[in-house]
């Protein structure tokens, strides 16, 4: 087997058994958030990397997931771990609706609509006081687990989410659907002319893309036992996803994962290092610096830059298409 098959499996095995060895909450918490961001980045890249449509609205779906899961557990007693997959599907349906409005046109209007969506849904959460608790937020019941293992369901939950995200992304990249998305990114008119149903594909890609944010939001809400409009719709979450994808390489399977595993620990480390009074600001400044450096010196991201240096193919393969010709139109 090749390294690129073996390495992820080894890493997965490692992460599975890690909590047995490492009992310190700090590291498990760090990894949990890294998994969460990696899963959402992989999701973001399906739309932003493969199809080339940048979404600024992923945090809207993250918040939507947080609230829906929170409300389900508060009002109906449905545990988050049970509802999370359905919350993801719901986020996908809402995403399809938003995509139906914004994606039938080409180009930049999509970016604006996704950004606006975040604020609209935040306003809804803020103003439906009777249901969402308004600005004071929503408290979720604590899980009845001993303090030293309460983190584990979230750790494994986020890890499962990440694995599912990677498998979905891989499947899309190997499919005709994925090829169609790349064609849309390359030139939508030509994609249209080749028989790609561009509107449908974009809407579908966006729905899949945001569903991971929805699930992540659901788990996140229960992890903190709390949702409020500021926390759930923090724009920095979307920006994090974009930076992670840019650092790792947009449009590649592993780029977003690599980006998340670099950026998230780095920013947490900075928060840990700096005095608590300024920690929040310092790590944001650092994030900005990272973004500027990447855009200036490595606009293609780590993986693409690396593969093109080695292979001389100019850019990494935009899609993991089947190698042999006959496998063609699968």
């Amino acid at each position, binding site marked *: 087997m090749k390294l690129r098959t073996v390495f992820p499996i080894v890493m997965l095995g490692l992460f599975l058994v890690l909590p047995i060895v490492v009992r310190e909450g700090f590291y498990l918490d760090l990894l949990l958030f890294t998994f969460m961001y990696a899963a959402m980045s992989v999701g973001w890249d399906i739309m932003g990397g493969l199809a080339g449509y940048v979404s600024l609205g992923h945090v809207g779906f993250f918040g939507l997931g947080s609230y829906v899961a929170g409300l389900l557990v508060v009002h109906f007693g449905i545990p988050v771990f049970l509802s999370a997959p359905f919350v993801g599907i719901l986020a996908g349906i809402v995403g399809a609706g938003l995509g139906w409005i914004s994606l039938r046109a080409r180009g930049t209007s999509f970016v604006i609509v996704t950004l606006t969506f975040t604020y609209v849904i935040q306003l809804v959460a803020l103003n439906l006081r009777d249901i969402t608790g308004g600005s004071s937020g929503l408290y979720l019941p604590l899980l009845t687990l001993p303090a030293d293992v309460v983190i584990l369901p979230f750790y494994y939950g986020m890890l499962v989410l990440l694995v599912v995200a990677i498998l979905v992304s891989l499947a899309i990249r190997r499919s005709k659907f994925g*090829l169609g998305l790349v064609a849309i990114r390359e030139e939508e008119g030509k994609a249209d002319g080749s028989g790609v149903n561009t509107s449908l594909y974009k809407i579908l890609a966006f729905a899949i893309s945001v569903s991971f944010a929805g699930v992540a939001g659901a788990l996140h809400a229960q992890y903190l036992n709390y949702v409020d409009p500021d926390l759930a719709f923090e724009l920095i979450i979307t920006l994090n996803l974009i930076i992670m994808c840019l650092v790792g390489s947009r449009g590649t399977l592993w780029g977003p994962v690599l980006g998340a595993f670099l950026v998230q620990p780095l920013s947490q480390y900075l928060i840990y290092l700096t005095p608590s009074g300024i920690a929040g600001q310092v790590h944001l400044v650092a994030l900005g610096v990272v973004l500027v450096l990447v855009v200036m010196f490595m606009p293609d991201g780590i993986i693409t830059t690396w593969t093109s240096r080695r292979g001389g193919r100019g850019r990494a393969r935009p899609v993991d*298409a089947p*190698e042999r010709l006959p*496998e063609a139109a699968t």
Partner: protein
Amino acid sequence: MLLEIEGLCAGYGSGGDILRGVDLSLAEGDFVCLIGPNGAGKSTLLRAISGILRPRRGTIRFDGTDVAGLRPDLLFRRGIAHVPQGRSTFPQMTVHENLLMGAYSIRDRGLARERLEVAAAFFPIVVEQANRRAGLLSGGEQKQVEMARAIVTSPRLMLLDEPTLGLEPRASRTVMAKMRELNEHGVTILLVEQNARTGLGTARTGCVMELGTIKLRGEGQRLLDDPQVKRLYLGESAAV
């Protein structure tokens, strides 16, 4: 007749007619080259046939049915493949992926595989360079990829708009030879060529277009020898 055009008029936007009553017919297996000065309406005619431009008046019959005004994708499915002027590959995709895009509308996998193999047989370059980015190929190679992509759909009529434009002489000879090869295998071809001498030399039949109508039609070689054509399009004095 595979393609029968009568009294075709078309133009862009609110502008006047570019095509002013074109009459043209192609039988199955024909290889027709359109020549004519800039602005004669050669590219416009190809666009009208492939459905990119909606005709204003006149009829276009393809295989017996009137297809004037149909959407490009429907015409494409009926077997009209248009290879437009300039570069039309997906530059960031590999050559192989470009070819797959040609097979996109084919639902039957077995059939798609078969067609891809046929395309690969005509254009070995799509196998040799399968994993290179299409944008990194030379102009002539890219043109071959475009043609390969077009024949994946197994078209009955292929429209080629100045395929040799901007190519170095050897590459342009290869492209011309490939066209002749396709024609020998039964593909009907309508070619627009700026280089009248090569175009008429390769095609069986030539048509001279001027001011939106077909002025002359004749056997390729005979048109080349026609004194009027010589004077107007080949840059030679009639006395030669």
